[in-house]
């Protein structure tokens, strides 16, 4: 019997090749997308799950009136540990400002390379956070000064497969160079919001000195503090004690500045997905995206199932005769239900196999856009899950046709009459509208994202971002050989301008201070971020100097000079015209210092367009080390110019490797998340359209079949092919327009929600809706056109011939 069913199922499959393949492929695409998304979601939710006693580990963060910081002040950890016995262990973590590249050199100076993601941690770090050590021992690592722990990859880059424990490595930053002893190598299988490649002991001769100087300074919030509570102590109770703690230590200071600060705890497991504060260690994930992706995954799967169900039913009705005959020949309802369920299960299994193949095919691409390293077999239980899902899909989508068909009265179906109730038709139409609504909404949202992304690329930022070469400039002699380098390079006519500084637009600027003008006091000082730069900085980056002058080549002249942007000038109480020569003041502790405004630049977006323009200043770097060398190139012979820069560079800075990026590329990394979202939304848009088309195709093939007789009669009575085609098309277009109508406000709302992430954004215009409607109609036309036309030109005699 089962053999008979399989035979029938298989022959049916082959008989309607187009139909079967559309149905199977549609479900496969749905399953594959769902599988990919689930993989992504599982990966995103797997961060920081590996820490021993992870539910007792927290990060201390700070909340003030206008923002939240992921960081705390230097003395925080020591004082907390001293005063609260419920803390089992506490650790401090420092992402040092303005150092995003570490130059690593081995003893012989033969190997040197830049490494990012280097952080300073104290000796208790590994007692709070768990790291899986490949070499060395987490319990003893970083107990001694000038020690370092490397990630597996970094260690491999440097030492290959050799165990590097106790070997030394030189680490150079703009703040100096230090020799470190390697204390351990950790594995990177576990995901964490800290994506470290180097973990450096805070006790060291370089930055370590600065760290020591932070003792007792509560104003500088640069340290990430992680703590593990003792078993049984409550996080809430602990948090409640913190305001009193703050009062004890900095109450007076805060009162004097008239600010409020609250310190709170966040569970380490929540950081990656739920925390998005200032001074996060790295770009975190986003719970919103997890929700959105889950919703999309569920939607796509449901839609694919519904289509599958719909197509199966539509086709099963062609098989009504078989059902009738089987019943007359003795089949009972159960055996028919069993047969149809089996058939849909078979289809689902084929879909599942195709889905897995699709996932494997698209995995590299998906990994590329999501920046992940997902593997299908990463979660074996997922495969079982998706297999189960396919099974359930098969059952659910087989259930309706199974019961629907098996309940036919044989006598009616044998007569070839299958009267569809209006409600069944409406359900079908409703489903198609639903699918098109989602597709249309995705088309619209995709359109909004596309427009905004274009806007981000093309908006005048107030500085020149094209063809700006950025070269990391970590060199103890940088300050001295800067002029030589610059002069050598400017001899090349393809290099238009050159400068150096510790920052460039788009990078996270960590240097800040609060300035106040001559008419103001420290109470209303303006929090201003600043970059320290050398001569020609404003010119090279294309800032517009609207008053005053740039820094001179002579470092000493401008050591107390400032160039402010318009916003900063306004906030300290001057105007561009009056500012030149005026003084601004800042206070650190009890020391009051003053600086002179020598120039005003037009406001420019020194941060990404997510944020509005804020107060910004340029100060002279003086004899300090720059972090970046910046050169503006001509638009000709780019490759050759870079080659020639490299040779000059190697001559002047033989100890510093030549690496470069372009400013526009670097700036665009600020939009990494958006870029990802847009790719993902475009991808889903295509998939949703594809699936909706399958739905529409199913409906079309179903209704044209149903209306065959009607069309035949109309043709016999003299209707033209055109009038019949347009009559049927109109029905479908009405559905599509209805979908557009529902989708538009939805997309408008979602689009605007997304745009709220940007301080500078497009407004959603009506043109987008018209364009999307046009696209949706076009797609609908293409999908149903052929079928409708085919039905219209069919010989009416054939469709009217009675059974």
């Amino acid at each position, binding site marked *: 019997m089962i053999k*008979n069913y399989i035979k029938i199922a298989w*022959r049916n499959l082959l008989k309607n090749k187009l139909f079967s393949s559309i149905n199977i492929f549609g479900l496969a695409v749905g399953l594959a997308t769902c599988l990919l998304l689930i993989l992504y979601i599982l990966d995103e939710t797997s961060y920081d799950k590996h820490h021993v006693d992870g539910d007792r580990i927290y990060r201390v963060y700070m909340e003030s009136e206008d923002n939240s910081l992921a960081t705390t002040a230097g003395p925080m950890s020591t004082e907390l540990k001293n005063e609260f016995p419920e803390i089992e262990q506490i650790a401090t973590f420092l992402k040092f400002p303005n150092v995003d590249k570490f130059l690593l050199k081995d003893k012989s100076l033969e190997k040197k390379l830049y490494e990012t993601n280097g952080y300073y941690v104290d000796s208790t770090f590994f007692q709070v956070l768990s790291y899986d050590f490949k070499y060395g021992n987490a319990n003893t690592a970083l107990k001694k000064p000038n020690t370092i722990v490397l990630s597996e990859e970094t260690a491999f880059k440097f030492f290959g497969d050799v165990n590097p424990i106790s070997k030394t490595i030189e680490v150079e930053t703009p703040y100096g160079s230090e020799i470190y002893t390697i204390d351990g190598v950790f594995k990177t299988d576990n995901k964490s919001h800290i994506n470290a490649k180097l973990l450096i002991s805070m006790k060291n001769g370089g930055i370590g000195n600065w760290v020591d100087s932070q003792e007792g300074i509560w104003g500088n919030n640069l340290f990430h503090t992680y703590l593990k509570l003792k078993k049984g102590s409550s996080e809430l109770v602990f948090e409640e004690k913190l305001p009193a703690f703050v009062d004890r230590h900095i109450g007076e200071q805060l009162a004097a500045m008239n600010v409020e600060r609250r310190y709170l705890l966040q569970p380490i497991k929540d950081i990656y997905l739920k925390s998005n504060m200032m001074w996060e260690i790295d770009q975190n994930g986003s719970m919103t995206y997890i929700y959105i992706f889950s919703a999309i995954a569920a939607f796509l799967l449901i839609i694919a199932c519904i289509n599958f169900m719909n197509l199966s039913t539509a086709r099963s009705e062609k098989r009504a*005769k078989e059902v*009738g005959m*089987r019943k007359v*020949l003795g*089949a*009972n309802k159960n055996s028919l239900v069993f047969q149809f369920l089996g058939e849909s299960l078979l289809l689902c299994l084929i879909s599942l196999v195709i889905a897995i193949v699709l996932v494997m095919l698209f995995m590299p691409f998906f990994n590329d856009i999501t920046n992940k390293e997902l593997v299908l077999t990463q979660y074996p239980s997922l495969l079982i899950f998706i297999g189960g899902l396919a099974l359930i899909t098969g059952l659910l989508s087989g259930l309706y046709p199974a019961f629907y068909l098996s309940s036919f009265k044989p006598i009616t179906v*044998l007569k070839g009459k299958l009267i569809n109730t209006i409600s069944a038709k409406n359900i079908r139409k409703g489903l198609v509208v639903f699918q098109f609504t989602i597709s249309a909404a995705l088309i619209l949202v995709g359109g909004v994202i596309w427009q905004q992304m274009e806007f981000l690329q093309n908006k005048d930022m107030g500085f020149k971002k094209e063809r700006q070469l950025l070269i990391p400039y970590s060199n103890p002699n940088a300050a001295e050989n800067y002029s030589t380098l610059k002069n050598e390079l400017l001899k090349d006519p393809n290099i238009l301008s050159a400068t150096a500084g510790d920052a460039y637009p788009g990078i996270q600027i960590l240097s800040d201070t609060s300035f106040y003008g001559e008419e103001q006091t420290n109470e209303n000082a303006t929090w201003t971020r600043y970059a320290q730069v050398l001569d020609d900085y404003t010119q090279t980056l294309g800032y517009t100097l609207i008053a005053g002058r740039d820094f001179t080549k002579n470092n000493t002249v401008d050591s107390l000079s400032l160039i402010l942007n318009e916003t900063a000038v306004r906030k300290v109480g001057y105007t561009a015209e009056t500012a030149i020569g005026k003084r601004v003041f800042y206070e650190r502790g009890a020391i009051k210092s003053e600086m002179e405004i020598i120039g005003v630049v037009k406001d420019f977006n020194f941060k990404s367009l997510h944020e509005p323009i804020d107060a910004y200043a340029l100060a002279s770097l003086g004899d300090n080390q720059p972090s970046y060398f910046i050169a503006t190139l001509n638009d000709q012979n780019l490759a050759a110019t870079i080659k020639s820069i490299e040779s000059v560079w190697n001559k002047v800075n033989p100890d510093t490797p030549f690496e470069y990026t372009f400013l526009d590329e670097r700036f665009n990394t600020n939009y990494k998340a958006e870029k990802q979202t847009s790719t993902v939304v475009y991808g889903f848009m295509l998939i949703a359209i594809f699936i909706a088309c399958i739905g529409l195709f199913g409906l079309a093939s179903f209704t044209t079949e149903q209306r065959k007789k009607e069309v035949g009669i109309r043709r016999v009575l003299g209707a033209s092919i055109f009038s019949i085609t347009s009559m049927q098309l109109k029905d479908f277009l009405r559905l599509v327009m209805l979908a557009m109508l529902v989708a538009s406000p939805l997309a408008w709302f979602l689009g605007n929600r997304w745009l709220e992430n940007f301080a500078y954004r497009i407004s959603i215009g009506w043109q987008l809706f018209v364009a999307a409607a046009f696209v949706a109609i076009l797609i609908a036309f293409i999908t149903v056109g052929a079928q409708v036309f085919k039905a219209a030109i069919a010989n009416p005699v054939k469709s009217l011939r009675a*059974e």
Partner: protein
Amino acid sequence: MLLQLNNIFKWVKTGGQQTFLLKDINFNVEEGEFISIMGPSGSGKTTLLNVIGMLDGFNEGEYNFMDESVHDLKEKHRADLYKRYIGFVFQSYHLLDELTVQENLEMPLLYKKLKGSERKAMVADMLDRFNIVGKKDLFPTQLSGGQQQLVGIARALISNPKLILADEPTGNLNSSQGEEIMGIFKELNEEGVTIIQVTHSEKNAEYGTRTINLLDGRMV
């Protein structure tokens, strides 16, 4: 006596009006009879046949089939009854296009849950009896109308029914094919199978032992 119909009425309501499909039908069928039901289009022939075949119900009256009161039976019992004793032959054959001749013949046996070896033997018998062994692996669409109907009859016979109900079995066939089919019915009848056929053709009706004429749902 094989079956007995007493005062059978069947009607449908269309727009509040009662339209009678069958009115006061009374007749008995003895085993071994070959009955032809005749009448113009719309006179209720097929309806009557379907009522006899228990594919369709009726509104009033009594129907006894082999001493069972069909009108009192539950759906499931009724189905069991017709599955066991009645074979159907249709004007448009109603073979399953996806199955070969052999598989079509086998199908009723599958639903009777017979063993594979038994099924094979019965199918082989039937193929033999109708001289269609050579066609066993062909699909219905590869056969002529007469051959398809032959398969249809073979399928109806395979489960050894007492009664064969044929609804215009030659309606879609040309005259020579039709004669061949009617010849087969005659032979079957002589072997003891009771046959009730619906037909338009006087000539076909002559194969039968008795004719029932219908007009507007009433026996005349």
